[in-house]
C-alpha cells in the first residue's frame, strides 16, 4: 500500500472541566502519515501543543487495539469515526487526504458528563452492571466446566453479545442517548447461558431500572447504536431484552425470581 503525508485542519472540543462551558478550537497539523492511527495523529498534535507551551488535548485511550473500550471520539458526526465496526484507536489516517477538515467532539449524553475536553465520565455503565449484570456465584462454588453442555450456537450467540466493550458509542450515536444496546448485550450474554437462567428475570428488571435512574433515554428503534457499534452488537439483543423484561414484569415474580 502506498503511504503519503497530509496536512489537516482539526476542530476539537475543548472544555476545562464539567462546570465550565466548552467551545471548539481549531488546529493545523502537518506531515501526518497515512500509516498513523487516528490517536497517533492526536499524539503528534499534543506534542506540538506541548512544544508551544500550550495545554494538550485530554482524551481517553489505553489499549490502542480496539478492545479496552476506553477511546471515545465523535469524529465528523460519527461515534468512533467512519470505519465500520472500528474503535477510534483502530481508525487509521489512510481514511483521510491532504487538506481535510476533521471535527472531533466527546460523547454527548447527559449520563456521560464531560470531565475535560474529549474525556467523559461513563461510570453510569458500571452502576448498571452492579444492578445485576452478573451471575451470583462465589469463588469456589463451581462444578466441573463440562458438567453442563451448552449448544454451540447458543454459546456463540452469547459470546457475540459478550463482545461488548462498554465504550458507550451506542449512547453517543443515539439521538435519545439510550443505553439499550449496552444493557441488552449484557442481559443477552447471560440469559442465553444456562448458568445465567436463575437470575434472568430480576437481572433484566434491575438493570433497566438502573438505566432509567441514570437518565439514559428511551429506545425508539432507530438503529444508530448497531450501525456505530465497534463490536457489531446486534439489535436483536434489544428485542431479546424487551422479551426478557416483559416476561419478568408479567410473570410477577421479578423481585424474587
Amino acid at each position: 500500500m502506498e503511504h503519503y503525508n497530509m496536512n489537516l485542519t482539526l476542530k476539537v472540543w475543548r472544555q476545562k472541566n464539567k462546570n465550565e462551558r466548552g467551545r471548539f478550537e481549531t488546529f493545523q497539523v502537518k506531515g501526518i502519515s497515512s500509516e498513523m492511527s487516528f490517536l497517533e495523529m492526536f499524539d503528534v498534535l499534543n506534542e506540538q501543543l506541548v512544544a508551544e507551551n500550550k495545554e494538550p488535548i485530554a482524551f481517553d485511550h489505553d489499549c490502542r487495539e480496539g478492545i479496552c473500550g476506553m477511546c471515545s471520539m465523535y469524529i465528523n458526526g460519527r461515534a468512533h469515526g467512519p470505519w465500520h465496526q472500528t474503535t477510534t484507536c483502530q481508525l487509521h489516517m489512510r481514511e483521510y487526504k491532504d487538506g481535510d477538515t476533521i471535527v472531533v467532539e466527546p460523547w454527548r449524553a447527559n449520563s456521560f458528563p464531560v470531565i475535560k475536553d474529549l474525556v467523559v465520565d461513563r461510570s453510569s455503565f458500571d452502576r448498571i452492571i452492579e444492578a445485576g449484570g452478573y451471575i451470583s456465584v462465589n469463588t469456589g462454588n463451581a462444578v466441573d466446566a463440562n458438567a453442563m453442555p451448552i449448544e454451540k450456537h447458543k454459546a456463540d450467540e452469547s459470546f457475540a453479545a459478550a463482545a461488548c466493550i462498554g465504550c458507550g458509542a451506542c449512547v453517543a450515536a443515539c439521538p435519545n442517548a439510550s443505553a439499550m444496546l449496552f444493557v441488552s448485550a449484557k442481559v443477552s450474554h447471560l440469559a442465553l447461558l444456562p448458568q445465567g437462567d436463575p437470575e434472568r428475570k430480576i437481572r433484566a428488571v434491575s438493570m433497566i431500572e438502573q438505566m432509567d435512574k441514570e437518565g439514559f433515554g428511551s429506545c425508539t428503534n432507530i438503529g444508530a447504536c448497531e450501525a456505530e457499534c465497534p463490536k457489531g452488537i446486534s439489535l436483536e439483543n434489544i428485542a431479546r431484552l424487551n422479551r426478557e423484561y416483559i416476561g419478568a414484569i408479567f410473570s410477577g415474580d421479578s423481585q424474587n425470581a
Partner: protein
Amino acid sequence: MTLNSKIPAGPLESKWKTYKSTCKLVNPANKRQLEVIVIGTGLAGASAAASLGEMGYKVKAFCFQDSPRRAHSIAAQGGINAAKNYQNDGDSTYRLFYDTVKGGDYRSREGNVYRLAEVSANIIDQCVAQGVPFAREYGGLLSNRSFGGTQVQRTFYAAGQTGQQLLIGAYQALERQVAQGNVKMYTRHEMLDIVTIDGKTRGIIARNLVTGELERHFGHAVLLCSGGYGNVFYLSTNAMGSNVTAAWKAHKKGAFFGNPCFTQIHPTCIPVSGDHQSKLTLMSESLRNDGRIWVPKKQGDTRKPNEIPEEERDYYLERRYPAFGNLVPRDVASRAAKERCDAGYGVGSSKQAVYLDFSSAIMRYGRVEANKKGEENASEATIRQWGMDVVKEKYGNLFEMYEKITGENPYVVPMRIYPAVHYTMGGLWVDYELMTTVPGLYALGEANFSDHGANRLGASALMQGLADGYFVIPYTLGNNLANDISVKAISTDHPAFVAAEKEVRDRIERLMNIKGTESVESFHKRLGKIMWDKCGMARNAQGLKEAIEEIKALRKEFYANVRIPGEINEFNPELDKAGRVADFLELGELMCMDALDRNESCGGHFREEYQTPDGEALRQDDQYMFVSAWEYKGESQYELHKEALDYEVVHPSQRSYK
C-alpha cells in the same frame, strides 16, 4: 536478610493441599473488621477483590482507568491453559507443571508452579460458572487448542478475545461485590506510595486523577495487582497506561525486585512502521496453530510473497525445530526471527519482518469442508473459500485487526510479523504466600516474579493472574491476617500517613517545577530506544554498561528539562505520565544491572556471550541457579540477594524443542 520462600515441606503434589488444610483462618465476624486494599483491577486484582469481598473482608479496589473493566488483561487474545485433559491427549497437572518449568528455562520455583498447575482446572470451572462464553464443540463441550511449548491441547479460548471474556467475568463478580457494599471501587485513581507503620504495610497514598487531590487510605494489607512493566521499552504490546509506578514505589519502600531483566519478547506482532508509532499490536500465538512462518531462501528477495514458489521458502522454525515446529516457545521463536532478519532474509519495506502464512491451513480446512459436504470435485477456488470461512471463524477478529492496521488482507497476502516486547516475567519478589519482603504487602499476577522463570509459555498469564486472585490469596492472606484481628483500623491522621503524603506531594511539585522544554513523551521514547537496543532481544556486557550510563544521563536531563503543562489539581494526563516515566527511568537502570549481572543466557534473557554453537540460550546452572532479588539502597544503589532454586523433581537440562 535471608530470603525465605516459605515453600511448605513435603512432596511436591501435597505442598498446597497441606498448606490449605493447616493455614490459619479468620472467622467471618473478624473478616468484617479487616480492610484490604487492592491496586489494579486486571485478572489478578479483580479476581482477588471479588473473592475477598465475597469472603467478607472490607475491600477497597483502585484502578487508573475509568472503569475496572478496562485493565489490560482485557487485551489478551489467545487463551488460558488448564490441565483438564478433556482432549484425552496425555495432559495432567504434572505435565502442565513440567512444561511451565521447562518453558521457563529452569528459573522458576517448583512449588509455586506446581500449585499453579493444580488450581488451573478450578479456574476454568469458576469462569464457566460466571458465564464466560468459551468456545465449544457441536456436542456442547468446551473446545481446546494448542499453544507454544507444549504437545497437548490444553488451551481454552473465546475466539481471539479470551482475556476480555475472562476479565468481564471477574469484573462482573467485582461489581456484584461493589453493589453489596463489600468492595468500594476507586476508578481514575493512581497509587503513588505505600504507608508502613511499625514495619507493616498499612495503607497507601493515592491520587485522584480527575481532581488531582491526594488521598490517604488505610488497609490491614495491600495487594499490588498492577501488572507488568513492558512499557519501559516505550514500544510494546502493553496498553498506553500500563506502568511500573505502584510496584516501583513499593520497591523503594523495601520490596525486593525479582529478576527485573526477564522480559518476554513476543514473536508475532505487527512490525513497526514509521516514527510516530505509539504501540505495537500482538497477533495471537494461537495463529501459530495454523499459520506457518517463513522467509525467502534468497537474501534480500524483493519479490511479492505469493510470487515466491514453495521450494524457495525457508520455513525456518519447522527446519530448526522439527518436533515443535511453529509452536516452539516464544523466546525461541523470537530469536529465530531476529536471526533470519539480521542475516538479511527479512521481508517488507523495513526488512525487519517475517511472513506468517495461512495459505496451507486455508486449503487444508477447505478440503475437510469439501469432504464433509461430499464435494470431492470442488474447484480449488471453492475449496479456498470454504477454508477461509473456517479460518475466519477461528481467528476472524485478529485478521480484521491486522487489516485495519496494515491495510493488507491476510487471507490473501501472508501477514508480516516481528517480535515485540509483550510481558515481564520479572516483578516484585514474593514468597509462596505472595507476600513481598515488606510484611503486609502482596504482589499478584504479572506484578510478581514467581511462576514463569525466564520465559512464560503462551496462555499462562491469564492462568496465573486468576490463580493468584481466585485461589491462592484467599488462603494466604487469611493465614497472615489471622495475626491482625486485634489491630483496629488506624486513623489516616497517623504521622506515617502525613509523612507519606508529604513525600508524594513533594515529588509531584518537583516535577511540575522543572518547567523545561522537552515533552514527557520524548523522554519516554529515548529511554525506550536505549532499552530496546541494549537490553532487548539480545544483550551483551558492553552494551549494558553503556545503557546504564546513558539512562543515568537521560534521567538527569529529565529532571532538568522535562516540560509538564497544566496544573497539579486538575485532570492532567501529562503529569500522570511524567510520574510513570520518572519511575521507568529508574527501573530501566536496574534491568540493565540485572542483565549485566546474570552472566548466562536463559529464556528471554539472551546474553550474546553465552550461546551454544547453534545459537541457543546457554545457561550456567552452576553459577546462576537462583532468583536475583534486588534491594533498593538509594539512587543507583541496589544490593543483590539470591534465592537459590532447588529442583527436587525436575532435572534441569538444556531445553530442546528439536
